[in-house]
């Protein structure tokens, strides 16, 4: 199935539940079960939350673009912001069993997605998240 979609949203956390609902419905169309749909939507919300917190420092007037593309074996989610670039040294998952709250979102993103890439260009800061379709993961 050929599918492309682009969402452009402001960095307002109150908008995230609406986008999460849309992501759950879009991923369901591609055959993921309800648990996987929720997990993918959660991972995307975590990536968006990271941009709101770290790129825009909780300012609601930033812009985040999310481009979605279904390919032959996977779905790619590309998120772009024009805020501060991420510090690669601070993108880390927390240690298992740790009581430290930081890094939880990164843990979720890495567990749910098959691949995650971070980059920066003149267009902004990008994070690309890729999840293979259910049959491609077997």
């Amino acid at each position, binding site marked *: 199935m050929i599918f492309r979609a682009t969402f452009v949203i402001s960095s307002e*956390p109150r908008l995230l539940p609406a986008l999460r609902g849309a992501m759950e419905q879009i991923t369901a169309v591609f055959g993921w079960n309800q648990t996987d749909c*929720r997990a993918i939507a*959660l991972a995307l919300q975590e990536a968006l939350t990271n941009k709101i*917190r770290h790129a825009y420092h909780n300012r609601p007037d930033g812009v985040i673009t999310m481009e979605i593309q279904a390919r032959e074996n996977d779905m790619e989610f590309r998120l772009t912001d024009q805020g501060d670039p991420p510090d690669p040294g601070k993108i880390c998952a*927390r240690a*298992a069993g740790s009581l430290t*709250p*930081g890094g939880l979102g990164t*843990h979720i993103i890495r567990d749910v997605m098959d691949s995650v890439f971070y980059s920066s260009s003149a267009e902004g800061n990008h994070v690309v998240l890729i999840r293979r379709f259910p049959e491609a993961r077997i």
Partner: protein
Amino acid sequence: MNTLVRTTGQTRIVDLDGDVDLTSSPELRETLFEGLREAPRVALNLGTIRYIDSSGIAVLLETLREAQRLNRTFVLFGMNPSVHEVFKLTHVTRIFQIAETEEQALAIP
């Protein structure tokens, strides 16, 4: 997110309803920390929350650390499958004391 706070014996019980996310987690933190200041035990009912993200899990971890610092007890109960899935994804399931029911939560010493 809506919270209902009630007290049973020595335990402050917090019932949560709705979504726990970046917007609502500061309010949850305030409620739980207030509970720890005012009662020796705090039990959090997760049975009717629809959604929790990493900011919500982070508040629970902060609350557990505060409970340990104050020598208080912090327990969770009524976890539904979607919340349990987030706990598994964040690898925190074994960190917390988790009961199935309110009665079991109240029985934890």
